[in-house]
């Protein structure tokens, strides 16, 4: 049995909304698991059920070999970092960190020792006497993390903790969270709707949509081998290009070109997915792109344009290539890196 076990966990709200469908998931000790999905997909609900803040309608949650369904959140030994940090506004940083320990009846010296260690680890030692209202966003974030770390819980839960920070700080805190988790080695679940955060932080990733885990795997597995149209579209930035097509006799006729010898026996309407970075320019390429806009990121250029049939399309090329607006590019797909999905079910067929 693994460290955290979810077995057919289901959440139905009193108004009948089914937020989480029979979800089963195992998380190993020390693992960094990320739940990623669009807002309203049930990822936060799942996390809150692990924390005990939401009742479980059906199914079981086991943590470290113990059934958690009926255990009070205060008894579960989990720590959570909230989106808006939920720091205690009337307590200074020291007391924010110490509160959970005090409630557990730990003696004063040990508390002081633990708080000071956590503060040092997070570089907030200088602010221990301040109130949360006197701290910047990044500092508050650190205090919230400190409050989780100091208790040395069985599991860390992060509920979109970076979404209130500005872009630069977000990247910095992302790195710090990852480093910290590796240093402390605590099993963690991190909920986010940001696929970059998900890719960079996760040991394993659960892509959730409409209350169902669409795919579970390492970030690279999911990027390289998306199992469904939703996962393919959600993971990767800029988004994968999708073209309509028809598959028959192992030949795909897409919008304006054909690919032969496809490794699939599926026949019928399909969607062809091609990542913008899996294209390269070549003479007599399959795809002809009329350039409308070029975003120069320095390292890369993002080329946006239209195909012959006015379909929007994106191509990513190295930043040292100069591409003129209004020009026509001829593109080939690298090494058969394309994905074919059943148009009606969204399932991968090649």
């Amino acid at each position, binding site marked *: 049995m693994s460290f955290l076990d979810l077995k057919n966990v289901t959440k139905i709200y009193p108004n009948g909304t089914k937020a989480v469908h029979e979800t089963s998931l195992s998380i190993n000790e020390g693992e960094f698991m990320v739940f990623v999905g669009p807002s309203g997909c049930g990822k936060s609900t799942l996390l809150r059920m692990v*924390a*005990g*803040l939401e009742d479980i309608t059906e199914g079981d949650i086991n943590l470290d070999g113990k059934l958690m369904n009926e255990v*009070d*959140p*205060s008894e*579960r030994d*989990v*720590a*959570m970092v*909230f*989106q*808006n940090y*939920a720091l*205690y*506004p*009337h307590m200074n940083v020291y007391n924010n960190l110490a*509160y*959970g320990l005090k*409630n*557990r009846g730990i003696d004063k010296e040990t508390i002081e020792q633990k708080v000071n260690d956590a503060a040092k680890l997070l570089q907030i030692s200088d602010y221990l006497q301040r109130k949360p*209202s006197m701290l910047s966003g990044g500092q508050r974030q650190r205090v919230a993390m400190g*409050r989780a770390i100091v*208790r040395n819980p069985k599991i860390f839960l992060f509920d979109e903790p970076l979404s209130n920070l500005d872009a630069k700080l977000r990247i910095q805190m992302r790195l710090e969270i990852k480093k910290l988790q590796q240093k402390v080695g605590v099993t963690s679940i991190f909920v986010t709707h940001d696929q970059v955060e998900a890719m960079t932080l996760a040991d394993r990733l659960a892509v959730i949509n409409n209350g169902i885990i669409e795919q579970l795997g390492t970030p690279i597995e999911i990027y390289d081998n998306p199992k469904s149209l939703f996962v393919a579209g959600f993971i990767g930035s800029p988004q994968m290009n999708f073209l309509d097509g028809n598959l028959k006799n192992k030949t795909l006729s897409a919008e304006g070109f054909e690919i032969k010898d496809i490794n699939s026996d599926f026949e019928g309407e399909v969607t062809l997915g091609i990542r913008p970075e899996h294209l390269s320019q070549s003479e007599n390429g399959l795809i002809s792109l009329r350039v409308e806009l070029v975003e120069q990121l320095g390292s890369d250029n993002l080329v946006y344009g239209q195909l012959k049939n006015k379909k929007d399309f994106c191509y990513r090329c190295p930043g040292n290539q100069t591409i003129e607006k209004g020009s026509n590019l001829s593109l080939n797909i690298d090494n058969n890196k394309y994905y074919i999905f059943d148009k009606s079910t969204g399932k991968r067929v090649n």
Partner: protein
Amino acid sequence: MKIKPLQIIAHIILILGVLLMVVPIWISFASSSHDSVTILTEGMKFHIGDQLARNYNEVLNEKGGWSEEVTAAKMFINSFIMALGIATLKVAISAMSAYALVYYRFKLAVPIFWLIFITLLVPLEVRIFPSYKIVSDLGLTNSYTGLILPLVASATATFFFRQFYKTIPDELLESAKLDGANGWSFFIDFLVPLSKTMIAAMFIFMFVYGYSQYLWPLIMTTAEEYWTVVMGMKIIYTESYEGVALPRTAERFAYIILSMIPPVLVVVFLQKWFIKGLIQTEK
């Protein structure tokens, strides 16, 4: 700095308002320092006279009442105990019932809240006979408990606390739960410190409310040792000398001035939090 005409008008209005408040108090104070005869013959005074110490000493220590047993000092203490008891209990009970209404989502929370709110329409004066009956059946007439107990529930304060608790984000409760707080410690460690400005404001209102009660103590107390200040104002220097005695106007003024001191002290003492509680909610 340039002064605009509008500001001048505004200041004139404000100064007039202040005078309207302060002048009567000053007249009472100045008049309380003269001889009663002077006031009766010459009218109320604007300047301080020479009888200040004598009058106040007399008011505080003279035994009055029908049986001439109760002093003004005793009545101040009674009123203070009554007001303190009412204010403390009102704040405590309201805060706790608001906590129950907001955080314990039982089915009847909303109807119960409205039921509490409706009691605003039934002040003590309306239900004074049933209230008296209950208190007297309990044998609580002529006791501090009897003075305080029927007045300790407050719909107004419950309402204010409820509104305030509703603005506290749910994450705070959830976070506290994960930190091991139970229902009681969340109230004591979070809601009470977060609403301390509100508690101060409510305390002042309720203290003044309790202090200025007239009808209830009048009905409740037959023993003079439980008389309160506001009752005394009516009784103590009225015709205490039968027949030809002069009305003791100067002493009455002194009594009035003294009776203002306890609420003023409470306001002065809690003012800092009081104003905060009225103009902002501390986040």
